[in-house]
């Protein structure tokens, strides 16, 4: 014990040793100020553009995040949050929110033909039927530009009106009647020579349509030559009160149906453009009841379990055997051997899968050529051979991991227990079965579970190796026999092209989330039982 000392404040601050001079010139604070300034500036910019696009959710989220950042970093309270905040923001937005959003989409019919709000669907329907009315008025016109966005400015009997694809025409000033507007407030007029010479710009201008007013029934202005604008009016008429669209050509009335999110005529025909609505459990029901979908999905699910379980069990087995064999101090150069064995693990996985795709090629692949004497075994085209091959690839990719893990676990085994067992007369096999394996499983079982969950969703290997093929005959969305659930979802979703069904894809994602969660929960409970061995 040190002598009790009466602490008196020193009259003069003592010279601190160099090692203790923690107080610098406060660089940390300056850096913090700069970073926070940047965050606030970017946040305000995002808030402003969200405001002008009337995207209230994004505005709210951004404002809340910026405010939270300011509160956390400029008050003295909530010290741990200062360290947690950066990661937490990304976690909340790009993982937790995204999970929630998936759940939300799963209950809608979001997808091709149901991609926006009802308002957007009306616009799309009216645009589709837009015609130039014979003898309709033409306006002198200039092409204008603002922040890379192109718009059209017309001279409507002396009034200059300007608009773009996103914003309808508005009055901005006056000009002598009959002349194309020479200058437009807030916009840059694109010189006519440039409109004529620039091919790409010309195509953009020809595709551009500027709504005449807020009412979609008024039609839109378009131009072919960049100097005169023509009013195109829709052949369909939208009646917002009644919620109907009437085709003026043949008189068909399409009524807005809020249950399906589409415009339906009495005879059952629908307009291609619809909006997305809440459909309840329809997507989930379809997964189980639609016979053309349920059958292939069932086989996909079965294969997913087989693939994940097979990958873990086989590669674990191989890794364990290799570890047992080479964990022998009498074998020389084990260090080099170990390096060679883990090479497949260090080689990027997507490249190995692509590499094997070529090696398993029936006609030119090196595997048929060298190991099967040039016979043309159709590895990638036959459902069962393809399954075996992709399992082979995944085992090749992951056995080194288990080799490493098992080697580590074997070296950590208590040597006295094994010694005692061999003194008691236990043979090699008995020792392995009763001591080595149980102890090994305690440390490796949690890894096996996460490895199972990883294989369960190993999109890269499946997609790179054979893109899920060969196709199951008659299956919708061209599902294939080596597709696992996540690659099946990828096909259903249509994000890679083709008709999109985000609702169904999200419903499938939710089902997979539940499956993974249940398996993990059960498995972790089992591992806790295993730990009681010790």
């Amino acid at each position, binding site marked *: 014990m040190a002598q009790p000392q009466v602490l008196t404040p020193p009259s003069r601050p003592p010279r601190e040793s160099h090692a203790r001079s*923690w107080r610098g010139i406060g660089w*940390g604070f300056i850096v913090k100020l700069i970073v926070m300034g940047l965050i606030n500036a970017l946040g305000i*910019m995002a808030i402003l*553009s969200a405001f002008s696009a009337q*995207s209230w959710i*994004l505005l709210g989220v951004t404002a809340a995040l910026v405010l939270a950042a300011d509160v956390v970093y400029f008050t003295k309270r909530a*010290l741990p949050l200062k*360290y947690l905040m950066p*990661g937490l923001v*990304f*976690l909340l*937005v*790009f*993982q*937790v929110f*995204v999970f929630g*959003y*998936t759940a939300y*989409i799963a209950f809608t019919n*979001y997808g091709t033909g149901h991609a926006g709000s009802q308002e957007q669907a009306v616009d799309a329907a009216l645009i589709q039927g837009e015609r130039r009315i014979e003898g309709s008025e033409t306006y002198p016109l200039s092409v204008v530009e603002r922040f890379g966005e192109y718009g059209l400015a017309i001279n409507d009997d002396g009034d200059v009106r300007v608009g773009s694809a996103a914003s309808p025409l508005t009055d901005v000033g006056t000009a002598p009647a009959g002349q194309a507007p020479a200058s437009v407030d807030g916009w840059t007029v694109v010189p006519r020579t440039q409109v004529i010479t620039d091919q790409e710009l010309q195509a953009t201008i020809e595709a551009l349509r500027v709504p005449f007013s807020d009412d979609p029934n008024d039609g839109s202005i378009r131009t072919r030559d960049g100097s005169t604008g023509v009013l195109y009016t829709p052949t369909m008429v939208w009646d917002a009160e009644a919620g109907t669209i009437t085709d003026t050509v043949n008189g068909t009335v399409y009524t807005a149906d809020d249950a399906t999110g589409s415009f339906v005529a009495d005879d059952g025909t629908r307009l291609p453009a619809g909006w997305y609505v809440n459909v309840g459990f329809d997507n989930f029901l379809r997964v189980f009841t639609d016979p053309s979908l349920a059958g292939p999905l069932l086989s996909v699910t079965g294969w997913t379990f087989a693939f994940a379980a097979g990958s873990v069990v086989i590669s674990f087995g191989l890794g364990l055997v*290799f570890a047992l*064999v080479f964990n022998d101090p009498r*074998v020389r150069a084990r260090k080099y051997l170990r*390096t060679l*064995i*883990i*090479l497949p693990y260090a*080689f*990027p996985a*997507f*490249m*190995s899968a692509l*590499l094997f795709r*070529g*090696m398993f*090629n029936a*006609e*030119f692949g*090196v595997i048929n050529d060298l190991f099967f004497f040039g016979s043309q075994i159709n590895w990638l085209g036959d459902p069962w051979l393809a399954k075996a091959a992709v399992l082979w690839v995944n085992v090749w990719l*992951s056995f080194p*991991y288990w080799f*490493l893990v098992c080697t*580590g676990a074997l070296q950590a085994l208590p040597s006295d227990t094994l010694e005692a067992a061999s003194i008691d007369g236990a043979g090699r096999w008995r020792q392995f079965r009763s001591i080595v394996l149980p102890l090994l499983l305690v*440390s490796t079982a949690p890894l096996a579970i*996460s490895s199972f969950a*990883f294989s369960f*969703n190993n999109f*890269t290997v499946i*997609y*790179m190796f054979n893109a899920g093929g060969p196709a199951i005959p008659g299956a919708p969305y061209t599902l294939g026999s080596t597709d696992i659930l*996540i690659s099946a*979802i990828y096909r259903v*979703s249509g*994000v*890679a092209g083709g008709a999109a069904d*985000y609702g169904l*894809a*999200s419903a499938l994602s939710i089902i997979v989330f539940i499956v*993974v*969660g249940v398996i993990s929960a059960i498995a972790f409970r089992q591992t806790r039982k295993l730990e009681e061995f010790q």
Partner: protein
Amino acid sequence: MSTARTRIRRRRWWLEVGWKYFFAVVVVFYAVFPLVYVLSASLNPRGTLSGSNNLFSAFDLSNFAALGATSYWTWVGNTLLVGGVSAVGAVIMGASAAYAFSRFRFRGRRVSLTSLLIVQMFPQALAFVAIFLMLLAIGEIVPALGLNSKLALICVYLGGALGANTFLMYGFFNTIPIEIDESAKIDGATHAQIFWRLIIPLVTPILAVVALLAFITAFGDYILAKIVLTSEDNWTLAVGMYQWVSNQLASRWGLFAAGAVIAAIPVLALFLSLQRFIVGGLTQGSVKG
């Protein structure tokens, strides 16, 4: 007598040790053959699948030279950028979160740790539809964070940074005696100084491992990179190289092999040199396959 004994001893050696060398040859062949094959194919000027089966029948660097005429080096740059920034971000976020969990006692600490464990079980890739639609919406407001932006992809990867790495680092941070912090605190250090100047230098091994794992994850990801990055000059290697060999008829095998060799060698070298740390890290949580 003595010859009989040596014979018995030799037989025992064969039974117990000798066969392991033969076994090792088989295992090494299994592990290394595809890699040797891709190296040989990269040196084969014929550049097609059919011509690449005779190992090392030719030595020619034309495939490597031909990479220059493709977007390969752009993709390499994109991959390095996306992987590098995600790795650095993952390290900073993971380390500060682990520091908070390891050094501070605050309300909701246990709950947050448990929720992190639960969240990390659900892979982000499964929610790719929602990610796609969300980026579509964000892109209308902030184009720099919308579809076809590398920054957006990095943000998506960083969303998984906390779940994947906090536990790895948390365990490591706990092994550093808290007395170090306390003595510095008595000497007048602020929490930020303790974090940046004391703790970070002490935990560099785990930082290196987390950085490498985050880099490899970003490097090998296909599904998110594919849906986020739509234009060819924004692709990463995984998205770009898939195009080369996905079509069996127009397959550019030689290019793929050369590209694979170039891309894999740095990763292999890093992996092997950090092997000791990675094995420790892997057994504590993170899994590749």
